């Protein structure tokens, strides 16, 4: 069963790129959390544990043939959907948001697996769906329903960031499948009233405040506007070559919020400067282009769709997080894959990489 070719075809380049990014991540977390009070296991060490756990999961995922996912996709979709409903009914509320459900031995956040599951669902849906000259508006109805249900459920939690991410991932996959210009134009036109209604009725005040603060950070220089200003100062003061490892005044003085998680890149930019950022951006861009190349080389449509989906998941996380850190986007809690501290993000991203590796090493199998 286990083919020798699987080993020879193993995508070492992809794994090496990911490991390189995680290594920078750990070093950066070490610096970012050095000003914290030392209680218990330091963050960088915990991040190492998460990386190990993530790698195990990643290798498990790529050892099983990804075509199996095709059979399970809808079941997984249904399962996670039920969990999302459960969260709203019986979830745990923290900080005004209900995102977790307790499974007895551990707590889980079902909006996170939804990111992967929506990819599988769309891949499964379009793998058997003949598309000629792009999807029409009518053909879009069913996939948009598949996306809409979980997106609204996640938004209700409320977790705007994840809802947007899931939609962006699905949207990218739709673009890959092909959408007619007429359909696209109609959708964009329809989006205006939808956004208006969402703004009026679905968004919470704190979310609106973040958008206002993004548009005008000076409105609330002590609140969430403060984070944007401080992050910009941190990034900019890094200048060309940075202030040096552990020397970032912005981060060491703890001007930055969440500086080991969502604002980790801000710390990195300050300490390593434009040169460091260029290196990180290159690594990430390489990762994205490599993922797309895997999609292109793959011989079957399900695999291609899966690869595009996973790559877009990584891509949007990267763009939104960096955009937030450098003041191009409002503050939404989206971590930088492989770089920010956090087990949830690490696990999701590693599973994604596992899927990519899986597709990549089986491309010659047919």
């Amino acid at each position: 069963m286990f083919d020798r070719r699987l080993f020879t075809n193993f995508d070492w380049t992809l794994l090496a790129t990911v490991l390189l990014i995680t290594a920078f991540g750990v070093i950066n977390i070490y610096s970012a959390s050095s000003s914290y009070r030392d209680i218990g296991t330091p963050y960088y060490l915990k991040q190492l544990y998460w990386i190990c756990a993530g790698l195990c999961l990643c290798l498990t995922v790529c050892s099983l043939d990804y075509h199996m996912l095709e059979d399970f996709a809808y079941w997984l979709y249904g399962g996670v959907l039920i969990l999302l409903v459960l969260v709203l009914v019986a979830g745990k509320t923290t900080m005004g948001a209900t995102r977790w459900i307790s499974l007895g031995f551990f707590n889980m956040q079902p909006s996170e697996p939804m990111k992967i599951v929506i990819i599988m669902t769309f891949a499964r849906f379009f793998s058997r769906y003949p598309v000629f000259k792009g999807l029409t508006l009518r053909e879009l109805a069913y996939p948009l329903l598949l996306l809409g249900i979980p997106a609204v459920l996640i938004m209700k939690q409320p977790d705007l960031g994840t809802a947007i991410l899931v939609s962006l991932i699905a949207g990218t996959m739709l673009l890959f499948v092909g959408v007619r210009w007429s359909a696209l134009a109609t959708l964009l036109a329809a989006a205006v009233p939808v956004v208006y209604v969402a703004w009026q009725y679905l968004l919470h005040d704190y979310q609106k405040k973040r958008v206002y603060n993004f548009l005008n950070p000076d409105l609330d220089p002590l609140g969430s506007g403060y984070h944007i200003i401080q992050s910009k100062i941190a990034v900019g003061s890094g200048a060309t070559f940075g202030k040096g490892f552990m020397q970032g005044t912005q981060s060491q003085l703890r001007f930055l919020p969440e500086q080991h998680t969502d604002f980790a890149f801000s710390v990195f930019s300050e300490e390593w400067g434009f040169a460091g950022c260029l290196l990180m951006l290159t690594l990430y861009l390489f990762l994205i282009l490599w993922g797309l190349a895997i999609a292109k080389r793959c011989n079957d449509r399900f695999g291609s769709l899966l690869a595009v989906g996973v790559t877009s998941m990584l891509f949007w996380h990267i763009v939104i997080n960096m955009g937030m850190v450098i003041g191009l986007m409002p503050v939404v809690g989206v971590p930088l894959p492989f770089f920010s501290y956090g087990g949830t993000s690490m696990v999701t991203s590693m599973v994604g990489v596992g899927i990519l590796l899986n597709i990549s090493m089986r491309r010659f199998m047919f």
Partner: protein
Amino acid sequence: MKPLQNIIPDDDGGGRRIIGLSIGAFAMFFLLLSRLWYLQVISAEDLIGQSENNRLRFVPVAAPRGAILDRNGKVLVSNTPSFSVAVIPQDVKNKEQLIDNLARYLNLDRKEIETKWTKGQGRAKYYPLVVASGITRDQMEYLEENRLSLSGVNIEMKPIRAYTNGVLASHLLGYLGEISEDELNSDRYQEYNAGDYVGKSGIERSWESYLHGTDGGRQIEVDARGRFLRTVAETGTSVGNTVMLTIDLEMQKAAEKALGDQAGAAVAMDVNTGEILAFASSPDYDPALFTGRMPPDIWKKYLDDERHPLENKALKGMYPPGSTFKIVTAIAGLEEGLIDEHTSIQCSGSYKFGNSTFRCWERKGHGTVDLRKSLRESCDVYYYKLAERLGVNRIAKYARRLGLGAPLGIGLENEKGGVIPTEEWKLKRFGKKWFSGETLSVGIGQGYVLTTPIQLASMIATVANEGSVYRPHLVKRVVDLDGKVLQDFAPQVLSKADLKPLTYRLVKEGLFAVVNEPRGTGGMSRLYEVKVAGKTGSSQVVKLRDSKGDVPYRFRDHALFVAFAPYEKPEIAVAVIVEHGEHGGSAAAPVSAKILRAYFEGKGVIKKPVPKAVPKEEEGGESVAEPDPGAAQE
């Protein structure tokens, strides 16, 4: 391997779109890079300036915690300022000399300061590290005067807890401590940061969310050396809410004084509301010791003490209820129609059941015993026989109806539920069948039966008010700074034990006899001004046969007493347990008497300068004796 039909010919090649997506990705990254270029290269000079002039620092300010008051508004816990000494390494000119000076001024070991200094070395040079906390005001003023020789030293002030009455009610109030890593990671403390102080036990922990208040912060401007210049902006803290307990300070004092040196617990409760008036666990510990640095020798002393001062015995102590449980057995017998006030048995001092002999505490036997006498003199044989006829499941049914066997939800964490055994319970717990001999032990509150002092108080209160199981509660209301009531805890009836009026009357008459009639075992709880009713109990810690003389402390029986008063129109119920106190009548009943006395003194029913405390009467000698060896089997 792969179903071929899955391959659908691409209309115009996914390849073209992949290239499209790649270009899109490239463009986005280029946008990010341009922005980085703009920030880090074009605006760098400006932003470096801003970061260097970023003399704005955010200093979190912990909100003062809310106070804890007794039911009459007397302060139990409030705040007092505490000073700690921090060092900002970059401002220090001569480290060695500074350590010397600090050690001298603060009377500290040089090593201790050095250790703390090294521990903080990984941090930034401008990050203040605390080298001594909880210094006195005199020391603080002394340091202020000698500022010149102490460059780099900062004195920080923060409010800490002040325990107005010292060790009073320490278990109930609880203590504070720095938030632990586990707590930080739990959902409950999402909004907390490392270094925050949180309640670790008692009211402080269970009512943390009310007491904590909203932390604020100050945006301060500092000079080039990181020293404070001025406050730029301030987000105010808001003081935590005041938690008003149902506890009566005077009664709490009386209860703790009555327990004295003895290990044990005492709970007093309003029988018509469930409000807990006194909640004592002995011995005490000093909660103030937990706010600063706990000296290791004291910590060890606490841990090694066989009387377990850190344990809240009123809440978590589970004890066999002993003869106090006879109230339950009697109620079950009356309700099931197995006995009435005239039913009598012969007590010869023991009861043969199968191959075992169950002894009565009175070796000589009680002779002819009816219900009233069985309660008054606590005859074991009466209850062996009754329990045998009832069976364990029927006893359990009434125990549960009286509020035993499950936590009552008094408003503190980790409340224990006790054990009311049934046949199924034993099968589930031990995988073994129930032996009918075990039912006899249960009938006198031994064997598997376990209750907490709070449950016993609730049980006797339910008997006193004839059927309402109130939720015993500790918090009367939560009030904000302006005195607005945020939450008011009205009496809550958890369940009803609707029994025949005659049942309650007969049992209460028996309990009255326990305290007020000759040969009653509870004579030492008698008050002259108010009629008291109650039941003694002693519960075995280990099975010892014919143990006379010196039994080691930890093997001695526990002494229990439950009571209510006034007999005619009950207001207050009391449950007392004295660990290893041996006899309920002699060790626990007097404690109950003192608590009841404090209650009626507070109400003006009993005049303060009392003639003489507990009676030493003709039957006093008798009333002391209740060895109650329980299910001593052979």
